[in-house]
């Protein structure tokens, strides 16, 4: 909420803009891997965002589903139809369209949980680093404990508690529980990063100057320190989107993620898994491939961004 509340760009913010005009763009243009990853990511985002326009069918419109068309293989396999490019699933849904709608849900959940974990992590990191003392010790202990458990376990636990608290929850609430489960495990990284940079920033002269003229702690944190600690958060966020998408897919695959009425990529893989043994490989293969493509290219993009923004590597 307070992330972009800074109307006056600080020196480092405008420096960042200059950075994007020059070196970073150049490094992007000279890295074929980064460009390929960016193109794939862009295609996936556009298909997901404009699924209604791009998708050849609406897989959730029950009126258009024909049971006769179920389990059709991809078009190049014998028995395939040009109407269904990548084949159909057990209910006659077009896989390509289901992929686009599914990718939308995956990306939506992934991005929403990354945003929420940024808000939680950055706030706690700022507080811990700036206030120090007991606040710092308390937040960092929680981080230590969270980090000693694998994130998938924590996410499963939170989702399990959410399920038992609201046994007959409507679908919207299921999404909220899912996003909470993923972001409550993901905030730790941001908190640690931001705390580290805040510890450095809080002793700088501009902070002392602000203190001297009587600006309150929270205002200093929000208006002065925050813009200067956001750089690494950006890089971290890119990489975390990939892992948030994987976590979502894993939870959905395990059957405790998104509601079945709005299947994400993970749900599609789970559904297709049952057909694997009867030879209908395409139902599970396409969503798996899409998931891998999205996470791999977002990861590569994040790696490139980290290297490009790191002055020590240049």
């Amino acid at each position, binding site marked *: 909420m307070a992330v972009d509340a800074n109307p006056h760009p600080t020196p480092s913010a405008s420096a960042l803009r200059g950075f994007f005009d020059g070196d970073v763009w150049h490094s992007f243009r000279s890295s074929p891997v980064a460009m390929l990853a960016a193109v794939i990511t862009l295609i996936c985002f556009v298909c997901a965002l404009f699924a209604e326009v791009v998708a050849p069918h609406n897989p959730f419109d029950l009126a258009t589903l024909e049971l006769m068309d179920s389990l059709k293989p991809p078009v190049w396999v014998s028995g395939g139809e040009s109407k269904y490019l990548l084949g159909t699933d057990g209910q006659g849904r077009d896989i390509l369209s289901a992929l686009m709608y599914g990718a939308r849900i995956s990306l939506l959940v992934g991005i929403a949980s990354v945003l929420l974990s940024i808000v939680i992590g950055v706030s706690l990191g700022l507080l811990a680093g700036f206030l120090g003392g007991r606040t710092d010790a308390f937040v960092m202990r929680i981080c230590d404990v969270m980090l000693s458990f694998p994130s998938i*376990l924590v996410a499963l636990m939170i989702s399990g508690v959410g399920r038992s608290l609201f046994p007959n929850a409507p679908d919207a609430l299921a999404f909220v529980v899912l996003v909470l489960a993923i972001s409550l495990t993901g905030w730790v990284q941001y908190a640690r990063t931001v705390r580290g940079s805040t510890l450095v920033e809080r002793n700088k002269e501009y902070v002392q100057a602000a203190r001297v003229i009587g600006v309150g702690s929270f205002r200093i944190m929000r208006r002065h320190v925050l813009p200067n600690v956001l750089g690494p958060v950006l890089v971290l966020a890119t990489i975390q989107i990939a892992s948030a998408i994987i976590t979502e897919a894993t939870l959905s695959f395990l059957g405790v993620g998104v509601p079945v009425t709005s299947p994400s990529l993970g749900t599609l893989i789970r559904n297709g898994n049952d057909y694997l043994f009867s030879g209908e490989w395409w139902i599970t293969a396409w969503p798996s491939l899409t998931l891998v493509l999205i996470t791999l290219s977002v990861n590569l993009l994040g790696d490139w961004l980290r290297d490009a923004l790191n002055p020590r590597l240049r």
Partner: protein
Amino acid sequence: MIASSRDTNARQAFSNFMLVFILRRLAQAVVVMLSVAFIAFMLFQYVGDPVTNLLGQDATEEQRTALRKDLGLDQPFPVQFARFAVNAAQGEFGISLRQGRKVSSLIVERFPATLELALVAGLIALGFGIPLGVYAALRRGKASAQLLMTGTLFGVSLPNFVIGIVLIWVFAVELKWLPSFGRGEVVDFGGWTSGLLTRDGLLHLILPAFTLSAFQLTLIMRLVRAEMLEVLRTDYIRFARARGLTNRSVYFGHALKNTLVPVITITGLQLGSLIAFAIITEQVFQWPGMGLLFIQAVQFADIPVMAAYLCLISLIFVVINLGVDLLYFAVDPRLRVEGKAH
């Protein structure tokens, strides 16, 4: 004289430091376990009413009050928590809501399957990861090593269940070489079941164990490669070469030995995550372990099973972390040197 008094001081300081370190770690472990127990307790108390769960919806108010009293639910909060903690410490978590059996016996039944899977996966990760890592380090810059390193990128970024599905597709569905479902034939040793002793059990273990090990395998391989490259640059390796030792003895006798400490530490730490990630593998292969039990508990909001699993897995993690911390402290030469150098 001066040197020896410095020596004693350093030793004194070192052992004090060590004592403080151990005590702090122990205290932290106890705090973690207590907070986990507290979370589990809160789950029991406030998520899903235990009285309704036991009696059903249409019990009379008298029955409810009686049961509430029997269960001790009318007592003050700290007393209830203390009783819960004592029960939990004895492995007593009540009755599974879904299966109607004691949680402790359910877990005892499932534990061997998960432990075997995790251990075999860990061995696979070490057995393949170390040689491949050494190979990638020695052949650095060659096409084969390059290919291997690109391969590890997939091991890291592929979601675990996708690896499992691909393995099932290739080896179980297309080639029909290996089974992909369940544990196969097991031998029962009075409560401990093992699939390691029958051919069928071993065949069933192959695919899940490789799936589970994929991430750790690539991790170990990358780690060994990085450590080897570092060590190969040091003076004592050059000296060993100057002495005319064979490549074999330089690489394996001198270099590899020195890369193994961090590798063993990481593997130890990863054993806990192997058990945790087994949840996913067990779901893919319908492996009848604790992870499958836990997933079903999460799906059906079976609080006692969830709470028990939470406590057990936390205990495993805390014990492993504590053990590795202490071990690391004991084997890190820099810390020992401080005490002995003078």
